[in-house]
C-alpha cells in the first residue's frame, strides 16, 4: 500500500496494541518449545547415555555360562561385513542419573589389551590418570559419567554398601577418559574373582564402524529365539520409540489444546483491535482506498505480527534452553538439544493458526463493510 501506510506503520506506532499480540505468540512458542524440548530430552538422554552401544553388538548368554566358542566362530565365519576380533567381557551393574531418576549402566570388565582396543574404538585419546591394573579393584570412567555421578579420581565407583553399584571391595576410579561417550571399565580378573554370576558376554565390532548397524541386524536375525540376548543400538532406538509413543500422543493433545486456546484468544484480540480501527478503515475506503488495499495491508500486518512473534519466541526459547542446559543439565551431564528441530516444528501451528484466525476476522469484517456507515458515524 501507499508509502505512508506501510505494514509496519500501524504496528510500530501502536506498540501498546501490537506488543501484547507479539508477546502472546512469544510466550506460546516459548512454552511449546520448552515442553517439547524437555520431553525430548528423555529419549535423547537414553540415546546419549547408551550411545557407546553404536560401536558394537553385545551378546549376553542365556541359560549358559558364556557366549561359547561355536557361536563366536559362526559370527566370524558368517558375518556379512569384516569384523574385529571378538572381545570376551563380563559386566557389573551400576547406575547413572537422569532427569527422571536412576538408569542402569554396565561396567564392562575387560582384560588389559581389550580395554585399550575398546578405548580406541571410542576414539579415547586422552585419559586423566591411567587404565586400571589387572586384578585390582580399579575403574576407568568417562568424563560425562564423572560429571553425572560427581566422581573424581580416587572416589569409589562400586562399593560394598551401595546396592545399585555393588562390589565386595571399593572399586576406585584411577582414570577419567576425555570423550563424549558414557563408559565405565574395570579389570576382567577382578570381576572374575569377586563378582557373581560368572558368565562371559561378548562384544562384536565391525571393522568399519559404518558397517556396525548391518552387523547388528544380521546378528539379531541370526540369533532370534536362540539362547543368546543381543544388544544393539537399533534395538535401543526401537525400544525407546515404543516406550515414548503414548507419551508423545498425550503431548500432541496438550499442544493441540494449547494452540487452540492461544488461537482463540488471539482471534478475540485481533477482532477487538480491528473493531477499534473501523473508523480508519472506513475513512480510507471513503477516501479511495480499495477493499483489496485494506485487506492486503491488514494481512501484511498480521503476517508481520505472527512472524516477529514466532521469531522472537524461537529466540527466547533458545535463550531459555541455553540457560537450562548450562545451569541445570550440563553440570549433571543431562542431555538437552537446544536446537531441537521437532520442538520448533511443534510451534509452527501457532503462527499458522493465528494467521488463519486473522484472515477469518478480516474476511468477515470486510465482507459487508460500508464506509458510508463510518463517515456518517453510524459505526464509529
Amino acid at each position: 500500500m501507499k508509502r505512508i501506510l506501510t505494514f509496519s506503520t500501524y504496528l510500530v506506532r501502536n506498540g501498546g496494541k501490537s506488543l501484547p499480540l507479539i508477546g502472546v505468540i512469544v510466550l506460546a512458542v516459548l512454552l511449546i518449545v520448552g515442553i517439547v524440548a524437555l520431553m525430548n530430552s528423555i529419549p535423547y538422554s537414553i540415546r546419549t547415555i547408551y550411545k557407546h552401544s553404536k560401536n558394537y553388538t553385545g551378546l549376553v548368554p542365556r541359560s549358559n555360562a558364556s557366549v561359547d566358542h561355536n557361536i563366536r566362530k559362526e559370527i566370524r565365519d558368517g558375518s556379512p561385513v569384516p569384523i574385529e576380533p571378538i572381545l570376551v567381557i563380563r559386566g557389573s551393574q551400576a547406575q547413572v542419573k537422569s532427569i527422571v531418576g536412576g538408569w542402569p549402566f554396565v561396567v564392562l570388565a575387560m582384560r588389559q589389551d581389550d580395554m585399550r582396543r575398546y578405548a580406541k574404538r571410542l576414539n579415547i585419546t586422552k585419559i586423566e590418570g591411567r587404565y586400571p591394573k589387572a586384578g585390582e579393584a580399579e575403574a576407568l570412567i568417562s568424563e560425562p559419567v564423572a560429571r553425572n555421578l560427581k566422581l573424581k579420581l580416587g572416589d569409589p565407583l562400586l562399593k560394598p554398601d551401595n546396592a545399585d553399584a555393588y562390589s565386595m571391595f571399593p572399586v576406585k576410579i584411577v582414570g577419567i577418559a576425555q570423550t563424549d561417550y558414557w563408559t565405565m571399565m574395570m579389570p576382567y580378573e577382578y570381576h572374575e574373582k569377586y563378582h557373581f554370576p560368572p558368565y562371559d558376554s561378548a562384544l562384536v565390532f565391525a571393522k568399519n564402524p559404518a558397517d556396525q548397524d548391518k552387523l547388528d541386524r544380521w546378528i539379531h536375525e541370526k540369533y532370534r529365539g536362540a539362547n543368546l540376548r543381543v544388544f544393539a543400538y537399533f534395538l535401543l532406538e526401537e525400544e525407546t520409540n515404543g516406550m515414548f509413543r503414548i507419551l508423545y500422543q498425550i503431548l500432541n493433545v496438550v499442544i493441540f489444546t494449547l494452540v487452540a486456546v492461544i488461537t482463540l484468544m488471539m482471534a478475540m484480540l485481533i477482532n477487538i483491535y480491528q473493531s477499534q480501527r473501523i473508523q480508519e478503515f472506513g475513512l480510507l475506503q471513503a477516501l479511495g482506498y480499495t477493499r483489496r488495499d485494506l485487506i492486503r495491508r491488514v494481512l501484511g500486518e498480521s503476517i508481520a505480527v505472527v512472524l516477529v512473534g514466532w521469531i522472537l519466541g524461537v529466540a527466547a526459547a533458545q535463550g531459555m534452553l541455553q540457560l537450562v542446559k548450562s545451569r541445570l543439565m550440563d553440570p549433571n551431564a543431562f542431555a538437552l538439544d537446544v536446537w531441537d528441530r521437532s520442538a520448533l516444528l511443534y510451534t509452527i501451528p501457532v503462527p499458522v493458526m493465528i494467521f488463519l484466525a486473522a484472515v477469518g476476522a478480516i474476511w468477515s469484517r470486510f465482507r459487508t463493510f460500508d464506509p458510508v456507515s463510518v463517515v456518517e458515524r453510524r459505526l464509529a
Partner: protein
Amino acid sequence: MIELRQASLVYKDQGKDLYACRHINLTVRPGEFLGILGPSGSGKSSLLYMMSGLKSPTSGEVLYKDQRISEMSEPERARLRLVDFGIVFQYPYLIGYLSALENVLVGSPGVGTREKAQELLLDLGIGHKSHRLPHELSGGERQRVCVARALLGGRSVIFADEPTASLDHTNGLAVVDLLVRHRGEGALVIVTHDPSMLAHANRVIHITDGEVVKEEVDPSFAPTGPIRETIGP
C-alpha cells in the same frame, strides 16, 4: 463534469422503500461552487455520496466526464475518489497514529508531495503543527487538516459534507473560505443546512424530502470548462 440523470437512491426500511433522493437531475460544472442546502434528513448527504461514487444510485445514472460512475467497478470508483475527487466529511476524521502532515498525504498517495502538503498546511494556518498527532489538535485544526487532505493533488471536484457541523460559526466560515480559496480550478460542492456558508456559491439548490425544490443561480458565474445544460426535474 458531473451529471445526474433521474438519479434515485432508495433504502429499504422494514420492507418499505424509503427515498433518500428522488429522480434528481443535476449538473456540476467545471470550476463551479455548488451549494446543496436542506434541513437534516432531506437527502443532501445521500446526494453527495452518489455524486462522489460512495453510493450507487438505485435507479438513474451518475456520470463523471461522460463516464457512468454507477457502472464502474469498486477499484475504478475508488480511484476516482483518490485522484479526481477530494472529500471533506462532516466529522474531522483523521488517522490517530499519523501526524497532520501524513494525514494530508494519505489522501493522495503518489500524487501529493510532502513539500506541497506542508505548503498547503502553511496556507491553512497550521503549518507549525504539521508534525502533531490528531489528538494534539483542536477541532478546527483537525478540520483544516481534512481540508488540506481533500485539496492536495489538484482535484477536479471537492465535495464537502457539512464541513462546518462540528465547528463554531466563525471556524465554520473560515473552513468554507479556505475551501473556496484553495480549490484552484476544481469545482466545489458543499452540502449544508446553514445558508450563511454558501454566501459565495455560484449556485444553490434546495433539497427537501430527496427532491430538488428550488435553484438559485449567480448569473455572473462563467464555468471554466464546457457547459452542460442543467436538466430540470
